């Protein structure tokens, strides 16, 4: 009796151990390192991206290619000086399988550098630095958002088509501002316009009065600008208060009026901006996305939530193609490149350099919405300058 009992115990234990081992092999959790700003100026953007990412995951029943997902979160504080340490911690100490991040371009560049060295899959859900899918491009680096060049170039085309001849540009002197304005110049001058004045001020200086006076003295036909967040609010208000809104029309990259309309109030009314998303897309995917997002988070989604959602889609497409095995990097990239991504912004694909090839929309501020007015530039692809892949 005793022997029988002993034997059953042994068998049962062995079986349990075996099945445990087998289980571990097929469905080890997928570790996703979320490196996003959870504090500071960009905190709300980081949260929107995470919400979007998790919404897609929930829609897939919490699993990607059969693997459960475990998150390791790091607050990058939008601080480039801490970026390399933070990425290294995620990759080397926490052994994450995938990196997702971030908002700030300087931090994203540090992430791209580590991803390039270690071969970890990186999906950038916002940062627009041209170099991420330009000089830094790699088979394992993807972007679900945009390059700074894209909205600028599209707006340049639109303004040239409107017959505007002389434009002054104004922005912060840092990567995002410089690259957006460079894109604008390219599109605008191709269409026959001239940029008569390039104005800039150090980031994040918000004392615009001197430059506004300079604009009034230059008397251009229109002004193109890149500002975001608090700076965008102040610029739009100062521009209107200086009486320039009535005499010199203001155009901008979409970030000028995204997430800032409540604060800008009536001073933003009527402004035209270009971006890869608008508040009223009128396509079924966007409608269902907005409904699900609002239901889950009791918040209206924004462009950042869409980018987070699409980052999860890119990951899912790649993982599915390789059956959850991330060591097959080439197959992963191939599958992502070949698939149309069904985004709330409208379907898009990724270029060879892994930046979205997407429609850039022309939007106008109507009330508290960035209303879709049409397509500014269809299937616009970033030139991916300096990418050797």
């Amino acid at each position, binding site marked *: 009796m005793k022997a029988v009992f002993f034997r059953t115990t042994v068998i049962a234990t062995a079986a349990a151990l075996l099945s445990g081992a087998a289980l571990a092999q097929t469905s080890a959790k997928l570790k996703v390192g979320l490196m996003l700003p959870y504090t500071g100026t960009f905190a709300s953007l980081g949260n929107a991206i995470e919400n979007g990412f998790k919404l897609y995951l929930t829609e897939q029943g919490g699993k990607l290619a059969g693997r459960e997902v475990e998150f390791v979160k790091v607050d990058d504080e939008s601080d480039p000086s801490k970026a390399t340490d933070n990425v290294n911690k995620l990759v080397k100490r926490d052994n994450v399988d995938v990196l997702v991040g971030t908002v700030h371009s300087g931090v994203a560049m540090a992430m791209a550098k580590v991803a390039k060295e270690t071969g970890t899959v990186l999906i950038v859900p916002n940062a627009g630095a041209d170099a991420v899918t330009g000089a830094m491009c790699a088979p394992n680096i993807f972007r679900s958002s945009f390059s700074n060049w894209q909205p600028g170039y599209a707006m340049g085309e639109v303004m040239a088509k409107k017959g505007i001849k002389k434009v002054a540009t104004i922005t912060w002197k840092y990567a995002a501002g410089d690259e957006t304005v460079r894109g604008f110049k390219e599109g605008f001058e191709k269409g026959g316009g001239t940029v008569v004045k390039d104005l800039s001020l150090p980031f994040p200086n918000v004392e615009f009065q*001197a430059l506004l006076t300079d604009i009034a003295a230059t008397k251009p036909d229109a002004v193109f600008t890149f500002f975001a967040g608090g700076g965008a609010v102040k610029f739009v208000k100062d521009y209107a208060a*200086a009486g320039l809104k009535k005499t010199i029309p203001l155009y901008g990259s979409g970030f000028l009026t995204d997430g800032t309309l409540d*604060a800008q109030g009536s001073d933003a009314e009527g402004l035209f901006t270009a971006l890869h998303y608008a508040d009223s897309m009128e396509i079924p995917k966007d409608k269902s996305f907005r409904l699900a997002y609002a239901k889950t988070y009791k918040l209206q989604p924004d462009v950042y939530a869409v980018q987070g959602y699409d980052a999860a889609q890119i990951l899912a497409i790649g993982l599915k193609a390789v059956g959850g095995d991330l060591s097959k990097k080439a197959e992963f990239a191939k599958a992502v490149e070949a698939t149309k991504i069904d985004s709330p912004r409208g379907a898009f694909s990724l270029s060879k350099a892994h930046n979205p090839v997407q429609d850039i929309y022309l939007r106008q501020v109507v009330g508290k919405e960035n209303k879709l007015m049409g397509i500014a530039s269809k299937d616009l692809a970033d030139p991916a300058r300096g990418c050797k892949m």
Partner: protein
Amino acid sequence: MDLSIFFIQCLNALQYGLLLFLVASGLTLIFGIMGVINLAHGSFYMMGAYMAYALAPIVAATFGGGFFATLLVGVGLSVALGYVLEWAFFSFLYEREHLQQVLMTYGLILVFEELRSILVGDDVHGVEVPAFLSGTLPLGEMMTYPVYRLFISGVCLLLALGMYVVFTRTRLGMMIRAGSSNREMVQSLGIDIKFLYRVVFAAGMAIAVFAGMVAAPVSSVYPGMGDTVLIICFVVVVIGGIGSIRGALLAALLIGVVDTFGKVLLPQAAGVLVYVLMALILLWKPDGLFKAG
């Protein structure tokens, strides 16, 4: 640059300079006169801006609203808060080394930012200019100038004058100045220096909060806004000469001119011009323009 544009830029410079003085004036008191390196000054300023945004609807509901009522409530709250902060934290700092002051006040920045995030959230907000000041004046053929900016300039001048008179012409001012040069001596003369400093600190904080509230309609309200003013405030106080209100006003105006014309004439160097100015002035006068005492 033709003459009319030149004059408009001069107005811009003057206006920016006065705004800088307004923002830095609380620091003149706490760092300049009391001698505490207060990195949390920017947070006080931010608090003021957020008060202008968050208190307005509450004040409107309880007292019937109004710009000045909100200002009054905000200043009242900040005096109380300043009094408590001095008692709980800053009163331990006067005799300590600068490094410890920096550590403590840096810690306070983190606490205030986090509290702000919890209480009001991380969104950007705008504050409406009060209706009776929302007009604009025509300026040249293209531009208009907001009346509210002129109002701010007026407020700055009044504040500067008020501070100057209190510190140089009144008995209270004399006691405060005496306290900053020799604490023990003042105490032995029978003046309650602890209480006096608590009041001065509360006033310094209230001025910073007041500056934030007045500036909110033109600066808008956003996370991290305190950090952006902190450094320039220290530059103002250091150029002006530590403890000198006259100096701070002059320094603020100088910075206004350099920054405004720098942005237009030397845009590549606009970011460093102010610091070049500071370096030059400190080479010429290592104690700043007017050293007090």
